[in-house]
């Protein structure tokens, strides 16, 4: 009777509509977690020790499990699938029904702490992929933390002294490594440290987008980025100047420690910090914290491919012989512009005067007793022109024609304003005359190449004239 076309359209689309409504309802009624809960119930029934327990197990309800932690504003729905996590009967069950390993849950009841506080992952999610936060399409910045880094979560509430004996060795070791590998030579933490790298204060809680994931192998998450970049910084960040050479295990330790550096702070009632860990103040520890990344043991001077320059041997006796404390303090405090050596004073990198003095004390512990023979630069009348000729023949090989040193040159940058400004001519002259034993810098004086004192004075005058030219 009615129009055939529209009626058939109505019929077909009505059928499609009903089909999809049925599909959608089915999908909504059968979420992934239900399967796990049913499995869990079957396990309970199977493992029930007595009839009463079996009866109880049979009456268990399949429903949403949610932990709401008010002070943290956290919602965890992990127990939708991991319902057996605090059930002692599930000791031998398989994941996801397995009882939580160790006795952590005794002191950290699930109802108070939830799961994602330590394990991360997306607590609100109710399917495995989203909840574990794996893959980029889950759009979750804090995926489930690999088991080997899990200890980083302990440091949210516990102090290092406690962790040391109570299952947090990796954090403690990581912290030690962090100090001894000299990370703070380049990175600031709590406002103290060098300026070359990025500040690390909240690095562990930065979103994934913060890290350039281009070269990361395997899953692209913060954990893998951190570890792989500890193993080979230049592979992950091309052109990185990070000087770090670690074994696999050390990289894991440092990753664990880095992950403890987070922005959020636990509310008081969660924290259990009893002791503040003392920060070492002695020269050796400080040297390791701030200097060791570049200067190593300070004994040898080598050209460095990473920084593209020669790193001076600051604990070389020949150097210490002529460098007095005041000179050293000035170098450390002001830094050397144009080199990676930052200014370490209180207002820049954040070291206290006392700490700098301790470092100097440590550096100069091998200083030879004898003092060098003074050069007395002032008594000479100098000729920069002659100095220039000498420089081009004698010094340019290593220091470069313009004295700038730099790439593929053994010598240091002599045009460096710090050298020009702070290093007195006496020091320069003595260095040229006596060389630096233990480094490629030979003695140009009578004992070595055989330049006269006048020649050396001319050279010094020429070198010092760089700064005048620089200004023009």
């Amino acid at each position, binding site marked *: 009777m009615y129009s055939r076309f*529209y009626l058939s359209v109505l019929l077909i689309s009505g059928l499609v509509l009903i089909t999809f409504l049925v599909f959608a*309802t089915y999908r909504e009624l059968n979420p992934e977690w239900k399967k796990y809960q049913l499995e869990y119930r079957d396990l309970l029934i199977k493992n029930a020790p007595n009839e009463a327990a079996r009866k109880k197990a049979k009456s268990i309800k399949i429903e949403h499990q949610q932990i709401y932690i008010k002070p943290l504003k956290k919602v965890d729905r992990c127990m939708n699938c991991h319902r057996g996590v605090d059930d002692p009967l599930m000791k031998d069950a398989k994941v996801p029904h397995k009882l939580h390993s160790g006795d952590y849950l005794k002191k950290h009841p699930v109802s108070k702490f939830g799961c994602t506080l330590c394990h991360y992952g997306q607590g609100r999610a109710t399917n495995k992929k989203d909840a574990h936060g794996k893959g980029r399409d889950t759009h979750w910045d804090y995926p489930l933390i690999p088991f080997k880094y899990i200890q980083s979560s302990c440091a949210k509430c516990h102090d290092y002294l406690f962790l040391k004996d109570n299952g947090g060795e990796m954090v403690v070791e990581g912290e030690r490594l962090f100090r001894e590998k000299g990370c703070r030579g380049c990175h600031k933490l709590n406002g103290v440290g060098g300026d070359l790298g990025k500040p690390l204060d909240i690095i562990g809680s930065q979103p994934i987008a*913060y890290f350039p994931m281009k070269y990361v192998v395997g899953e692209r998450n913060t954990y893998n980025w951190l570890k792989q970049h500890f193993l080979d910084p230049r592979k992950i960040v091309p052109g990185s100047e990070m000087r770090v050479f670690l074994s696999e295990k050390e990289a894991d330790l440092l990753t664990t420690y880095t992950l403890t550096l987070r922005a959020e702070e636990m509310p008081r009632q969660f924290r259990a910090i009893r002791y503040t860990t003392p920060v070492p103040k002695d020269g050796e520890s400080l040297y390791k914290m701030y200097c060791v990344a570049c200067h190593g043991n300070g004994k040898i001077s080598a050209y460095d491919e990473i920084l593209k320059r020669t790193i001076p041997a600051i604990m070389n006796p020949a150097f210490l012989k002529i460098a007095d404390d005041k000179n050293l303090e000035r170098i450390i405090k002001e830094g050397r512009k144009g080199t990676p050596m930052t200014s370490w004073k209180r207002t820049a990198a954040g070291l206290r005067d006392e700490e700098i003095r301790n470092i100097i004390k440590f550096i100069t512990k091998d200083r030879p007793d004898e003092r060098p023979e003074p050069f007395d630069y002032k008594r000479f009348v100098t000729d920069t022109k002659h100095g220039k000729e000498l420089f081009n023949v004698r010094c340019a090989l290593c220091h470069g024609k313009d004295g700038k040193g730099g790439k593929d040159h053994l010598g240091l940058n002599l045009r460096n304003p710090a050298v020009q400004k702070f290093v007195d001519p006496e020091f320069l002259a003595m260095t040229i005359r006596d060389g630096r034993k233990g480094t490629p810098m030979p003695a140009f004086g009578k004992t070595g190449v055989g330049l006269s004192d006048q020649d050396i004075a001319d050279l010094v005058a020429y070198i010092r004239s760089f700064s005048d030219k620089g200004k023009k």
Partner: protein
Amino acid sequence: MGEVNQSGIAKFLNNIRSLKKSFLGSFLRSGKPTSDKSRAAVMFNNFFLHIQGVKTHINTLRPTYTFGFGLISLYLLIIVVISGVLLMVYYNPSVTEAYNKIKDLKYVVFGGNLLRNIHKWSGEGMIIFVLLHMARVFYTGSYKKGREFNWVIGIVLLILMFGMNLSGYMLPWDQLAYWALLIVANIINSPKEITDSLGITQYFDIGGFFKELFLGGTNPTQESLTRVYLLHIWLLPMFLFLFLGIHFWRIRKDGGLTRPDTFERKDSDIYYVNPPEKTGGIFPTYKTYGLMELARGRTPAVDKDVENTVLSWPNLLIAELAIFVLTLAGVIAYAYFVDAPFKEPANPLIPENPAKAPWYFLGLQELLSYSAFMGGVGLPGLALLGLALIPYLDREEDRVGIWFTNRQGVTVALQSFIIGTIVVIGILAFVVNFGWFRNWWPNVPQILITLINPGNIWVGFMIVYSLFVIKKTGSTRMGAIALFTMFLVSYVIFTAMGTYFRGPNWDFFWSKSQWPIH
């Protein structure tokens, strides 16, 4: 007394007994529509139905004439409104809560994810169908003969609909939302480009003023979310419904949908309509025009082609119902399979790379990457103005209601389609390969780029080409067809360019798989 009481109670009991009948009778006043008269009365007496005529022209019911685009847009709007109200149950316009609320909706609300998908996709579906509707109205010349103003209303509705979609995009407060909000705010800010060039920003910062109005500050904050929310759920819908009312009212006043002056009924029409009964009924087809018996109008309308009309009940209503169910089924099927995008929580410190606006604005964003002002304000403004002016600049009134007017129209449309495609792709290829002024002369003043950029050149070409067509064919309608076809082509191509071929740093990539991972 007792007798009166008794009879009163009896009456009352009687009333109760006949409650169903009397209630239904008051509700469905014309009774079961069995005769033509009662069918007409149903349409007439019902608030919701009376917006439609009692009789409908067969042309309106032919699916190949309208394809139901306008109707589908309306139904999508209804679906959007209903699903939107349902979403409001859970949504909370707060920068800290909005994101979590939507996650909850996804994970623990029965059908919540589907609901969100339906809301999202029917909203975006509206864009497509409104544009198709617009194209239909245009190509059948339906903006003429008194319908000029309704076309303008349609343009207003188009803008409002874009605004609704856009403001909705920002509510989840994820990375997409945040950066889209920022980009839109800066599009609003883009008149600065002109005021800067003129050096009057200091005194007359119109872009900055509106940006501030929109964001409630200088950066997207809670204030911005509140304002966007207000726009999305109240201000824009209110105006949308206001103008929608006018739109429908005008359709009715203009005599329903357009149709050819010389309409010929085909045998195949029998598939679409329930043919009018030749015998019986109150409308002897030989006698009267229109609804004189029922309507207390002044004069019977002539020229209604009454021979080719059929009763709206049931013909029109069954068609409308069919299309409604079709729309709903389509939306739900799509929403079942495709999830609405939802990314990481908003992070003001780390921009998305590429930071893309929602897809329907990516054509604009492509233009924006040449010049912010022209792409964001100048060209869209010009395009909307041009669209609105079409009915006033093309006043040829013959052959309204026929697709492409005539054979020449088909040719012109096809030619402009081909030429438009080639020229747009040519311009894009040129820009991708050789860059623009700034790549050649880095110090070129901005005003020059604002005035001469690929977008402007394209618009200039469109105008010149349609003038050329007008001159060649001697018909303004042909010029309009050329212009509109090119507009559609460029909208589609620019949008596709922005969506599929632009990657990080807005560089060109053949496919997303070539994007550098970052």
